């Protein structure tokens, strides 16, 4: 996941209203009108939130007749989850660095 996309993803989900839109789509794929009915948000606002979520790779849309149905993009969530597992990545990076230092020999030590 590139840093730019990661920032978009996190920014997209940091807004509580947009997160509510995302959660609704997560529960069931839906059209803008259906989402606006169930949420305390206007239809244009829902559209705008969906656009941000779509740009961040978190939702995707397909056409059904004249309606556009939004659903979540699972790959987007996987990328986010991978990043959230960063604790052990950091720890292992420290370990790998130490092994490298040792293998390069004592001449490189302080």
């Amino acid at each position: 996941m590139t840093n730019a996309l990661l920032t978009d993803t996190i920014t997209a989900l940091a807004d509580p209203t947009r997160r509510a839109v995302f959660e609704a789509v997560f529960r069931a794929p839906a059209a803008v009108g259906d989402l606006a009915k169930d949420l305390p948000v206007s239809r244009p606002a829902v559209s705008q939130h969906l656009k941000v979520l779509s740009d961040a790779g978190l939702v995707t849309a397909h056409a059904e007749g004249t309606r556009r149905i939004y659903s979540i993009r699972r790959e987007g969530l996987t990328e986010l989850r991978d990043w959230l597992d960063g604790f052990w990545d950091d720890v292992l990076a420290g370990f790998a660095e130490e092994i490298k230092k040792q293998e390069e020999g004592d001449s490189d030590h302080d």
Partner: protein
Amino acid sequence: MTKPIIKTLDVNCSPEKAFEVFVTRIGTWWPLAGHSSSAGDGKAALDVMIEPRVGGAFFETRHDGATDMWGEVLEYSPGEKFASTWHPGNNKDHPTRLDVAFEAAGEGGCRVTLTHSGWEAWADRAEEMRGNYNGGWDIVFGENYAGAVA
């Protein structure tokens, strides 16, 4: 059930060496400034140590000299396998499990596989805690971050 976190890493040394550095010299490479209970106070920990025996302690020496128990050694097989409970930060009642396996891979190399499992110890908070595994949901969605990016 909440899935384990699994990380693999290939290093250019023997499994024996990789085990030795990982377990017996953990204090030299662990990110003490960012990943310790001391880090919560904004200060790097002084050390992390693993007592080299089953039943041994896995612990941090905090910046103020106090000890924070991270876990208890469950398996100790040099060059092959290390396992412990994992409950840093006063979470002794909810121990998860850490397994680190060392296997020869390729020409003189070693594959290190780290598995962090046992999230069921957190019952209905398992997903939240797993997600929290640093850089977690609290930080991502917490008010500080939301404020910073608004």
